[in-house]
C-alpha cells in the first residue's frame, strides 16, 4: 500500500468504526420523542428494529411478570407532589423475554428489544402505552 492510499483509507475506516459504535450505543428515552411528545424521526425510523435504550426500571407493578416501565430518570415518589402518582408522559413499556429480575429504581440500565410504536393497552394490567420494547433483555449500564 502506498502511503497516500493508506492515509485516504484511514478516515473511511474510522468513520465505519464510528458508525458501528453509534449503532450499538444505547439511545436515550428522550430521543424517541419530540418536545410535543410526538414520535421523533429516530423513533419512526427504528420501528420494528431491535434497538437499545438507556433508562431506569420503575418499581414493577406486579411481581413475577415480564412487564416493567422504563423511565428517563429514577422514578422518585414524592409524597407531596402526587397522591396516586401518575406516570410521566415520556415512558416506555418493556416486555422482557423472561420474568423480570427487579433492579433498583435508581440504577441505570440498558434495555434491548424490538421497538413498537402506537397505542396499546396491556390485557392483564390495563396499562396504556404509546411505545414499547418487546422480546427485551436488559442489564445494568
Amino acid at each position, binding site marked *: 500500500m502506498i502511503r497516500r492510499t493508506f492515509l485516504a483509507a484511514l478516515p473511511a475506516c474510522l468513520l465505519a468504526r464510528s458508525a458501528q459504535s453509534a449503532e450499538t450505543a444505547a439511545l436515550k428515552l428522550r430521543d424517541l420523542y419530540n418536545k*410535543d411528545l410526538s414520535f421523533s424521526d429516530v423513533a419512526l425510523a427504528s420501528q420494528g428494529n431491535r434497538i437499545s435504550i438507556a433508562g431506569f426500571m420503575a418499581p414493577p407493578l406486579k411481581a413475577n411478570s415480564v412487564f416493567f416501565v422504563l423511565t*428517563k430518570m429514577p*422514578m422518585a415518589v414524592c*409524597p*407531596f*407532589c*402526587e397522591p396516586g402518582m401518575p406516570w410521566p408522559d415520556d415512558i416506555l413499556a418493556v416486555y422482557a423475554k423472561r420474568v423480570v429480575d427487579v433492579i433498583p429504581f*435508581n440504577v441505570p440500565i440498558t434495555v434491548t428489544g424490538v421497538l413498537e410504536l402506537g397505542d396499546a393497552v396491556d390485557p392483564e394490567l390495563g396499562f396504556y402505552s404509546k411505545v414499547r420494547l418487546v422480546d427485551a433483555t436488559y442489564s445494568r449500564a
Partner: protein
Amino acid sequence: MKNVLLSGAALLSMTSVLAAQDLPQATSPWFTAAQATIAERLAVQPNTNRAKNVILFTADGNGVGTNYAIRLFSGQLAGGLGDDYVQPFETFPNVALVKTYSSNGQTPDSAPTAAAMNTGIKTKNGMINVLDTVNVGDCAAGATAGVKTFAEIVSDMGKSVGVISTARITHATPAAVYARSVNRDWEDNTGLPEGCTQKDIADQLIDQMKAGVIDIALGGGRQHFLPVGVTDVEGKEGKRTDSRNLVDEATAAGGSVVFGADDFAALTMGNNAPVLGLFEASHMQYEHDRAGEPSLAEMTEATIKALSGNENGFYLSIEAGRVDHANHAGNLHRVLVDGKAFADAIAKAMELTNAEDTLIIVTADHEHAISFNGYCGRGSKITGLCMLENEQGVEHTGEPALAADGKPYTVAGYLNGAGSVLVEQADKTFAGSRPDLTEEQAIDPDYLQQALIPMSSETHSGEDVAVFARGPFAHLFGGVIEQNVIFHVMNHAVSAQ
C-alpha cells in the same frame, strides 16, 4: 434636633467617602462598585404609602441555597461566570431571612407555610388555613377552626384576587389563597372521609369564584375538576367520584375556562368575569419540557393587566411550583430552568407595576436538602463538575477537583434522594461507591446530582429562606422573621392610614 442629627449623618458619610478615596484600592472596580452600593443604600427611603396592590411570589422549595444555584445558572446562561449575576428581585431594597418551621414540623411542608403567609398564623404540616388546635384530618374539629385568608380580607376592601401556580391549582400553595382544609391531599372528593362536612379543595375554588373572592385562577389540575368517565382535552380522565363536572359549573356561573396556550392567548380577560385556566391534568410541565402551555411570565403578565382594571387594586399570589418537584427528583437542571422562569415572571411584574403603590414580595415556602461542594473555581457550571481554581487568572482551570476516592464531583449535590450513591443490593442492604462522572454526563438535563442518604424522593429541609420586597411598607422586612410575619406586612401595607 432632627435637622442637626441628619446633618451630622451627612457629614459622617462625606468624611467616609473622602477617606475611602485616599485608599490605594480606591480605583479597584470592586471598591467603586461597593461605593455605588452604599450610595444606593443611603438613598433608600421608607415607602409609607398604602399599598393598592400586593403581589406575593413564591418559588416552592427555593431556599437560600436553591436561589444561589438559580442565580449562578441564570448568570452562566447569560454568558457570565454566574456568581456576580443579579436576579431581578435581588435589586429589591428590603430583605429578611425567614424561619419556616410549622406548628409541629421542624421541617415544614407547603401547606402550613402557605397558610402562614396567607393567614398570619402557623399551623400543622398537612393542613391549610385551619387552627393548629385541630388534628390533621379531623373534619369535625376543622369545620369550626378555619381562619380568614388575606384574599378574603382584601376582597372585602373591593380588591380583585388572582392565584397562579405551575403546580395543580389545588396544590397546597395556591390552595392556601382560597381554601381551608384539614388535609392538603383532599384536592377532589375522593379523599374526603364519609360524612366529612368539609368540601374538597377544587370545590372550594369554584365556591370562591362564585362568591367573587377569586377572579383569576391559573395552573394545572384538571383531573380534580372533572368526574370519572369524562376525559379532558388531552384524553386524560377526571378523578371525581361525585359525578360533578366543576368545569361545567364554572362555565355555568359565567366564568371563562381555558385549557392551553392558544385559548389562553385568545382569551379576553378583565371583563369582570372570573377566569379558570387548567393547563394540565396534573401539574403543568416543567419549563424545560414546556409545550402548548403558557409560561409563568405569560400568565403573570395577562393576570396583572386584567386585575389592574380594578381601581381598588388587587392581590395576586404567583407560585413557581415545580422548583420544588425537580428538587424532590434530585434533578437540578429542571430546578434551575424553572427558577429562571420564576425570575422572568418577577421581572414582568416589576415592569408592569409601580413601586409607589404595589408591594411585591418574593420568597419561598421552604428549602430542600440541597448542598454545595468546594473549592470550585469561578465559572464552574452550577450543574457540572467542580473545577479547580485558577491561580493565574479568574476562570477555573478546566481540571476537575478530585475527592479522596480520586473521582470528580459536582458543584451541587443533595443530602438525600434518588441520586443516592448507596444502592439497594440483592440482600436488601444498601452499598455502593460514587460513579465516575464526566462534565457531559453531569450537565445532561436528565442527570440526578449525587446524594448521600437513599430515599425515593429528596426531602424538604427546615433551613431558612429569604424574603425580598419592594413597595409600600417593604421596609418592615428585615432581620430574621417568622414566616407568618409576611401576612402581617401585607395586611399592614393594605390598611395603613
